[in-house]
């Protein structure tokens, strides 16, 4: 059991980080913490992917003539992660912009409080 855990250490760390991020994004009332949770969740998946591409003894895929293909790590997860990182930054920026807008209006970062404030002002559109 312990050996298996040690063997799969990257995967286990990744899923634990995913869980932490997911629960934070889902349940933490503070908006900034939620955004951090979102980033934790995304980077956890990226860690998972990066670990999956790794091959014992492989080197980074800077191709050289006459080298066996098994000498490199798998480049596909790397490509996916690069794409994913930029997507995550875009979402984070949008999220932060919305947070700033909300703060300007309600002077709070606590989503529950904002919801109550918004609901009490709901009658007037």
């Amino acid at each position, binding site marked *: 059991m312990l050996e*298996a*855990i040690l*063997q*799969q*250490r990257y*995967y*286990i760390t*990744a*899923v*634990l980080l*995913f*869980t*932490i991020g*997911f*629960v934070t994004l*889902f*349940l*933490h009332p503070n908006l900034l913490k939620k955004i951090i949770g979102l980033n934790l969740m995304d980077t956890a998946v990226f860690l998972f992917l990066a670990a*999956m*591409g*790794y*091959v*014992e003894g492989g080197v*980074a*895929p*800077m*191709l*050289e*003539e006459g080298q066996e*293909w*098994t000498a*490199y790590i*798998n*480049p*596909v*997860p*790397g*490509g996916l992660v*690069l*794409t994913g990182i*930029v*997507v995550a*930054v*875009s*979402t984070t*920026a*949008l999220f932060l*912009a*919305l947070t*700033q*807008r909300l703060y*300007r209006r309600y002077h709070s970062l*606590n989503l*529950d*409080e904002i*919801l*109550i*404030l918004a*609901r*009490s002002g709901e009658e007037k559109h």
Partner: protein
Amino acid sequence: MKDNPQWLERVIQWAAGQEQEGPEGPEDPERQEFQEYLEYIDAHGYMEFGAYRYMRRRERAALGLDAVTEAIHNPPHQPNPPKPQHRPRRRPGLLRRQLWVYRVLSVGVALCLAVIFTAVALSLPGFGETDVPALNEVAQRYLERGMEETGAVNAVTGLILEYRAFDTFGESAVLFAAAVSTALLLNAPGRRLRNYRGPDPVLSTLGRSLLPVILLFGVYVVVNGHLSPGGGFSGGAVLGAGLILASLVLGEEEMDRLLPQRTMSRATTLALLAYGLMKGYSFFTGANHLGGEIPKGTPGAILSGGLILPLNLCVGVIVACTMYTFYTLFLSREE
């Protein structure tokens, strides 16, 4: 966690239908209201639900029944920890309990997910092994024939700009969409930049000496994307960070004069357009077998890799401009 037994006791009592008298007991005003509401519905029939009820709003207001329905329409089902002054109808006891449920819920969800995911992680192909399913003919071709097919030494760059270029195009579009939406959300017409307070001597000296290095490094990473680690994204991010540093060192007004917002958005648009046209050409000729391939050059030379170098430049411009745009938008505020 100290009040666990008490909480458990309450649940048992609640389940047995014999809830305690006292602060949580039957004199709960919300419960009273709910009872009244139920009786009201009983008396007026089911049509009182839905739209019909709101036709008779005035009538109900005259009877003083609106306050009751209000309580039902904002039911306390959401585990909110609000400040009492916003909702005086809530009592602190209930709130504390809800907060507690909230925490238990988060820990419970976290534990469940962690257990499931760990089980999955343990049953996955072993880390670092060479016979995993992901190392199949797809990865093999990328590594074996990547150099001749893309002309790029860096297989990852070749992958994202040649084999899977459509994703990359979509992803630039995400970045563009995010920049436009951030501008739409934060860019009020009457905004003004933060007042420049004069450069901090330490920051200014350090920044002035670091700035050229960072910008040069960013350009290097972008231009050498097909030869060494890095590429449009990493280089663009470094360049963006450099521009932000420049803005810190030189001051926003100076920066606004050198690189106005309009130039930035024009540059992003043009770069994305160029990217789309180049890649569109390559997709179109590839799909219709029209030939028309861009010469790949000698792998390893700076002018090699066909379209990869210009594509990297475009991506670099998009990323750098967008990052800097984010920065200026977050800095500005409407007064």
